[in-house]
């Protein structure tokens, strides 16, 4: 109420802006590179998106290529229907699994870490858990391939324990692709992902724990009734951001891990776009599928944000 009253006293907006600019000069100067970055690298390239609606050939360039409307989308959904549903299904399933198993893992890890009182042990554990995050994907996949190959570590362990008689070819069984993908993803991001939650935990008012203690809550109950609600807003925000990437699976890792035998479960939108758009030089087609993918992502964020707002009162906007 008061704010609105103040506003009416202000002269006009331009003067207001000018005054603000003068007052916070250095802040605005610092803002310039960021805005420029987004403009140059995220907005200007958008004009290239039009090739999704054109029959693009390098000879004619982006402007010169003829418009074909939704032809490329039709090609994707109608002519290539054999692959469309498979890659959409794979993309969604990998993400759903990642959401179910991968998303809670850092939270649980952070909660467990929080319970460790010995600070040296805790730090060591933390540092060790960060490590995989810094290994490049190529190396990670190389390790997966070595460990899970037919005469790799995992098969040998299983064999020596008598669980298996014949080695499993993990890398060529379509059924193993998703577990391996999601599992290695958890291993990779567990420690790193827990940082934000640990930070949130450290922000919780210690008085709340004391109060809970006086009320007779044990450690488990403290975690359940104080820690989790305390970091819930963070969880929701992280969840929303994650949903925004629902349709994007890390291209690199899938690309390195899959092969024709596992296409059935491994081929995702981004790898398909790569094969079509870049390897087979159907740039328009690739752009069309990529655009479709982004639109879905966009809708997912809006949708889940709305739900989150209703359910938890925490949201991105």
């Amino acid at each position, binding site marked *: 109420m008061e704010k609105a009253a103040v506003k009416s006293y202000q002269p006009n907006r331009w003067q207001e802006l000018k005054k603000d600019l003068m007052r916070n000069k250095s802040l605005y100067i610092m803002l310039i590179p960021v805005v420029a970055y987004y403009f140059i690298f995220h907005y200007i390239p958008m004009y290239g998106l039009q090739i999704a609606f054109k029959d693009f*050939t390098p000879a004619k360039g982006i402007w010169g290529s003829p418009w074909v409307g939704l032809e490329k989308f039709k090609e994707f959904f109608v002519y290539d229907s054999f692959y469309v549903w498979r890659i959409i299904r794979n993309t969604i399933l990998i993400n759903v699994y990642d959401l179910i198993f991968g998303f809670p893992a850092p939270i649980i890890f952070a909660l467990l870490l929080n319970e460790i009182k010995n600070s040296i042990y805790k730090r060591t554990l933390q540092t060790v858990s960060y490590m995989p995050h810094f290994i490049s994907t190529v190396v990670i996949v190389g390790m997966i*391939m070595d460990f899970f190959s037919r005469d790799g570590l995992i098969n040998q362990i299983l064999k020596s324990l008598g669980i298996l008689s014949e080695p499993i070819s993990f890398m060529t069984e379509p059924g193993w692709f998703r577990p391996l993908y999601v599992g290695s993803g958890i291993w990779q991001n567990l420690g790193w992902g827990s940082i934000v939650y640990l930070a949130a935990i450290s922000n919780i008012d210690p008085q709340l724990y004391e109060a809970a203690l006086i009320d007779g809550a044990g450690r488990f109950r403290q975690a359940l009734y104080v820690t989790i609600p305390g970091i819930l807003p963070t969880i929701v925000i992280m969840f929303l951001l994650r949903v925004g990437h629902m349709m994007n699976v890390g291209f690199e890792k899938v690309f390195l891990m899959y*092969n*024709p*035998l596992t296409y059935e479960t491994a081929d995702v939108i981004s790898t398909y776009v790569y094969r079509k758009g*870049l390897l087979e030089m*159907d740039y328009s087609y690739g752009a069309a599928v990529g655009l479709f993918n982004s639109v879905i992502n966009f809708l997912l964020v809006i949708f889940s944000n709305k739900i989150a707002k209703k359910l938890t009162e925490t949201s991105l906007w």
Partner: protein
Amino acid sequence: MDWFKSSKKVLSTILVIAFTLSLVIPAFVSSSSTAYAKSIPTLTYFVRLDPKVATSYNSYSSIAAYQLLQKKLGVKIVFKHPPVGGETDQFNLMIASRQLTDIIEWNWIDNYPGGPVKAMLDKIIIRLNDYLPKYAPNLNKYLQQHPDIKKLIVTDDGDIYGFPALRGNNPKIACVYYGPQIRNDWLKKLGLKEPETVDDWYKVLKAFVTKDPNGNGKKDERGFSILRNASNPRYAFDYSSFLVGAWGIKTDFFQVNGKVKYGPLEPQYKQFIATLQKWWKEGLIDPDILTMNQKVIRANVQNDVIGAWIGLLSGDMGFFLNLKKDIIATKFPVLKKGEYPLLGQAEFLFSRTSAAITTACKNVPLAMKVLDWGYSKEGYEAFNYGVLGKSYVKKDGKVYYTDEILKNPQGLSAAEALAKYARASISGPFAQADEYYYQIQMMYPQQKDAVEKWGQVKNDRILPPLSFTDDESKRLANIMNTVNTYYDEMFLRLMTGKATNVDAFVKTLKQMKIDEAIKIYQQAYDRWKKRK
């Protein structure tokens, strides 16, 4: 104190200026150096970096033959090598962004969607016919003397678009370099004869995996594997027609009496798949070909685990013979004893790769001159033999590679050692010499024998390099991209018995409009037959 202060100020100012300049100056320096270099014309040249060169150099400009070329023609060539393994990506990005080099060496027939005709329509590369007589007299003369080769390298309209990489003059030795190889010591130990028929192959492989030929007491033998092209077993069969050729078909397009056919649609294809399935089920095929790890397979051959494989003459067979492995080549299998194999690995003298001049080239005559050099006598010798007295010597008018090449002191293979001086072991826009094949590709008697055996095939069912019209190639790309992804996947599933229904596979291929693709191939083949 004052002096100190001011000097500090001066010093810091100087430092700031120096620092700023150091950011700006390189731009000046490089521009001034190009200004200096302007007296020497420069050409940019996109070509993949061959691993044999990569063991010694990171650019083709270090190869002695190219240094000679640059000196003789007074030109500077700047090679742009895409990262190994990322060649296609890099090429496609270059095309899309139109940051073309002056010269691009590429397989325009298979690796540019739509082929060379489309590349010219897309204004990527230029038509050379008008320039040829004037600026490339050597190639022009060569093509006049070899009309059969000219027929291979032109488009249907008679357009010449590039300087062809030629495999020498003798198809008997130059076009055969990939085929079945087997452990001779294992055969002897088990008292087996060199397999000839498909049944022989089954018996031999079966004995390999059951009778412990490597004598380590373990049942770790694997019968059959694929060395080259392990990354895609289907492609390995496409490429060599090993096994599938016994039924007189290929796994992909071929022709019988002028009629184009597609392997999977032929009735014999079922028998081929059934044989593969049997081999797979009984553990005769190396399971590692599914994980596509060529290194592991190679190590297993080295460790006496694998009994037979298809691989390269020099890169694979030569490599193992160097390690004193007792291996021999076998003929391509047939159905009945004494039959003459219908299909095996077959290549044309033109290797499908050409160095083309792009629309970005400002000095076409110069680029023509540079590329034409490879077909001149001097260029032929430099590209094939390297440097006289260093990489080769002449005795009684005959050429012999030196010990530095054949018994390299640094432990390089002959092909790798030669790659430091010449391009013969890489192929390129010139004709490879017979001496290269005899002295380096066939250093060992087993290799000579291999060429002899692999060469014993009819191979009259193979399709020549065809060229398609713009519309045809668009439609073909549409169909074949879908088909190939599906085929890659299904081939492995069929081989491993995860899918057994060939009819259902064929039915899906038909839904994907494979018949239309065959028709397009037929049209292109009919046009090829009319080529002059």
